[in-house]
């Protein structure tokens, strides 16, 4: 086909433009989060002493500070990664926020607790359950994010997928934190981290396969 003919065809198709990709991505994340929230409330639900914990336990509140310090930068970053002209470079440092927050939490906990209580707090009550639930609750948001990124034009497919995986795990961890009885930063540092890193890897792997255009 001659290029000028192709241009005529493209111009004739001018009205087919889709909604801005940032909007699609926000909607997709919203839908994915809603699905996981409903699944979560239906199967696990928030823990009985949720309100008391919010009012009295700094450790409990810290869990949400940590999970949101993962999810919010990841969301902002992935929204940019959906467009081709975005160069991640220095912006990837935003993702250092969560490890910093976690480090502060862990150090404070080590100072606050006697050393013979460290081990018990790290192992917690149901670590295996935590390991399974965070990835499971990540699935709907991850699928939604990958769908939206596919609709976009990421020029760094593996990074976009990884940050998408991180975002979905951040959402899942926020939900699970309201159920999970273990509040120690030592527990978060081990068990939450494993699930979240796993989903980041899954996102990178899927991203490098399905996000080429």
């Amino acid at each position, binding site marked *: 086909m001659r290029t000028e003919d*192709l241009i005529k065809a493209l111009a004739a198709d001018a009205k087919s433009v889709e909604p801005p990709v940032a909007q699609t991505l926000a909607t997709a994340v919203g839908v994915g989060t809603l699905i996981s929230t409903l699944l979560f409330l239906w199967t696990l639900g928030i823990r009985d002493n949720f309100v008391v914990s919010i009012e009295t336990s700094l450790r409990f509140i810290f869990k949400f500070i940590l999970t949101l310090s993962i999810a919010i930068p990841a969301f902002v970053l992935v929204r940019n990664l959906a467009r*081709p002209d975005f160069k991640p470079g220095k912006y990837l440092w935003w993702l250092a926020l969560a490890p910093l927050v976690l480090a502060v939490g862990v150090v404070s906990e080590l100072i606050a607790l006697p050393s013979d209580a460290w081990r018990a707090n790290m192992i917690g009550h149901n670590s295996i359950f935590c390991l399974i639930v965070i990835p499971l609750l990540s699935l709907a948001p991850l699928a939604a994010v990958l769908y939206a990124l596919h609709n976009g034009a990421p020029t760094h497919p593996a990074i976009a997928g990884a940050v998408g995986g991180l975002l979905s795990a951040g959402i899942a961890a926020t939900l699970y934190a309201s159920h999970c009885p273990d509040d120690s930063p030592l527990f978060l540092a081990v068990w939450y981290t494993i699930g979240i890193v796993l989903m980041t890897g899954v996102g990178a792997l899927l991203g490098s396969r399905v996000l080429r255009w």
Partner: protein
Amino acid sequence: MRAAIAGDENAYHKILSELSTVLRGVVRRGFAGVGVPRDDVEDVVQEVLLAIHLKRHTWDQSMPLGPWISAIARNKMIDDLRRRGRRHEVSVDLTEFDIEGDDQQAAIDARDVDRILDGLSEKNRDIVRSVSIDGHSARDVAKRLGMTEVAVRVALHRSLKALSETYQEKKT
């Protein structure tokens, strides 16, 4: 480009024409020294134009247009070179055909029409040919085929997506 995204066909035609000239230079320069035959340059230009079209909702209108266009062109050129790297031995001889001239271009264009449009259904092929090569409007085509204008537009859009995917399949 803003007017084009708002659905202005004339503005869109104008900017795509201008872009195609620029892109031809960019691709030719980018591929200089790699021994890429001339018809392949035109292939990549078309591929970039299709990607610009299908991904135009990823341009953030508060950002400059230039880097966005470059990013798309770059992505498609890298893809093409990667594809070429895999069958480098086969393509070495093709540099011999790198002759300037419109006749050669016409012959290659014809080959492309056959190869790419062949993937479409008969009706969609008819629609694409009518609006592109014959330059008819969607409304005229709709009248001739007894379809609604919307249906013609949808078929056209799907066909363009299919064309883009044909390029993708060449990658494997």
